[in-house]
């Protein structure tokens, strides 16, 4: 394969494979701006991935599956909100509980769905959301193929970049940032911390619902145990590496998209001396290295992960 073509394919695949990561990371970015550290994103993505898979399998309509998958994400995230904000569980603890809950529930539900004695081939979603070339733009020489001959999810992820303006320039962004820096001050100047955090958490539930559903109804067409494989935690890493800024989160997600794309290529044309497990563990190794090197470059929101409770 000639190098130019390979690079083109790699870039296209990178943009495609980074999307679930980017959606999840943007969701996490929004809640972290409001001072909430959600470690439950992994479990949430798993649950929406499973729900989208189940609905897509039963009704054979990927759009309904996507919708219900997002609803599941919002529902699980509301549970997270109840745990950490209304009951007052430590945020890390609540998030980890949600993650363990998600993996337990999907492990059971998947087996309950496919039955005790599984057939040789796992169930497959027949209709998936596939590529949608944009009419005129996709005819552009190389860029058209990389940017505009893509999955619909990819186009929407370009749109998410406008969140930069919401975060930095708008009134709502300022209020959310204030909550993230110091909730009691925010409360003092009349910002409803509970309401804004609820909104952020619901938006995150929606976005990570999209990310999880995309795994089962667009990238793969089936469900596996622990299909997210740490993607939620890598998304949290993206927020740290991207320094709580959507544009930089896009860059770092793109880097991981490249790693995933490379990994696919290595598995396809892999050298026999290189075990495929090395390619598979590459994202995790890179995550640790990047966290060690760039983990402290940007300052997190001051009250990130700290409990806040208004006692009336």
């Amino acid at each position: 394969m000639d190098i130019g073509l390979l690079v083109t394919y790699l870039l296209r695949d990178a943009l495609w494979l980074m999307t679930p990561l980017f959606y999840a990371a943007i969701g996490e970015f929004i809640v972290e701006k409001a001072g909430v550290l959600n470690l439950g994103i992994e479990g949430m993505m798993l649950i929406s991935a499973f729900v989208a898979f189940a609905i897509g399998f039963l009704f054979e309509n990927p759009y309904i599956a996507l919708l219900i998958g997002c609803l599941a994400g919002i529902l699980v995230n509301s549970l997270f909100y109840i745990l950490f904000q209304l009951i007052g569980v430590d945020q890390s603890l609540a998030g980890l509980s949600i993650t363990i809950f998600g993996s337990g529930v999907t492990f059971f539900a998947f087996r309950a769905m496919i039955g005790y004695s599984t057939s040789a081939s796992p169930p497959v979603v027949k209709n998936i959301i596939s590529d949608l070339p944009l009419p005129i733009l996709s005819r552009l020489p190389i860029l058209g193929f990389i940017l505009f001959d893509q999955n619909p999810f990819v186009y929407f992820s370009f749109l998410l970049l406008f969140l930069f303006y919401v975060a930095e320039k708008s009134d709502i962004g300022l209020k959310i940032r204030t909550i993230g820096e110091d909730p009691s001050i925010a409360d003092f100047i009349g910002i409803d911390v509970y309401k804004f955090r609820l909104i952020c958490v619901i938006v995150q539930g929606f976005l990570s619902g999209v990310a999880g559903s995309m795994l089962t109804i667009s990238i793969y067409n089936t469900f596996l145990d622990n299909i997210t494989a740490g993607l939620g935690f890598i998304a949290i890493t993206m927020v740290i590496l991207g320094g709580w800024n959507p544009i930089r989160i896009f860059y770092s997600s793109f880097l991981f998209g490249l790693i995933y794309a490379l990994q696919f290529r290595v598995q396809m044309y892999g050298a026999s001396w290189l075990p495929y497990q090395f390619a598979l563990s590459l994202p995790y190794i890179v995550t640790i290295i990047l966290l060690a090197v760039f983990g402290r470059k940007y300052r997190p929101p001051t009250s990130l992960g700290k409990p806040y409770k208004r006692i009336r």
Partner: protein
Amino acid sequence: MIGGKIMWYEKKGILNVFASFLSITIGVAVLIFSFYMCGINVMSAIQTLYFGAIGTYNSISETLLLASILALISYGLTISFTANVWNIGAEGQYMMGAIASTVLSLTFKNLPGYILIPLSLVIGILAGLLWALLPGVLLVKYSVNEVLTTLMMNYIAQYILSWLVTGPLQDRTSLFPESPYIPSQAHLPRIIALYRINYISLILLIALAPLIYIIISKTYFGMSLRILGSSRRVAKYAGLNVEKLIISSLLISGALSGLAGAIEILGIQYRLRPGIVQGYGYTGIVITLVGNMHPYGCLLASIFIASLMNGISQVCQLYQLPIGLTQILQSIFLITFVSVKFLLEYLSTKRIKIYGE
């Protein structure tokens, strides 16, 4: 407390025990309800569960064996959670312990058992410890969130295991990805030849709980860990060596998880295969939290959850239920425990007026 009588739910010890029991009750109720929903005879299902869990000598032995693995992991996690260090990597440390002890006992096949067994256990401990070292160093030197690094280390360990059993360590005579059997003198000595429970598992299960309790509640080290757990800033002001404490809490927890992995190989499986990875690391987290981060609580919770796991697997086999009931049950334990405990704590501190604390 500001004024008023101290209610029963305001005493922390009672509150914790109450939360544990309530969560377990709710979990078991859900279990029985799910038996009912599956349309099987509830009473006979419970009978099967009892026989699978503790009803026969064999099931008692199996339950204690499983409990010893889970308890070792959760004793370690108790120490790191007490120091408020969230070690999610018990799973990976367990795998590395299993890998290291298998490799050692396969390499030195000719050593006598009384040298090989301690050597394999120690190398398992060392492997788990080393696997926890990197997240610890990253946490204190670069303040990288330990949840992220320990979790990533789990996945890396899993791929190392998968590579070893399909590559260098694979048994040439086997069709499955698994290593050859370890030499028979490396098997942990059984108490009764018929049942798999061995001396070392039983001793560690029972003797470590008071030891960990004494370490946490009676020693200087334990007190420092508790101070660190309540507030890192206070620990710094008190002049404690915070870096050393954080790393040592992670290392102890890694070492015990590694030991659990070594025991899984030397006492239960006798060979390395992907099937040893059954989410014990995460079950350990559930046990530690439901056991109130107290060694005796962990001991009870691990025996209870191990017996439930064994019993449920019997029920699932007999009645053709989907496996995975234990996983969902554990998550229900965890969620209900966490919410009940913090709800009670909230109710008990409601009358103190702290604004924005």
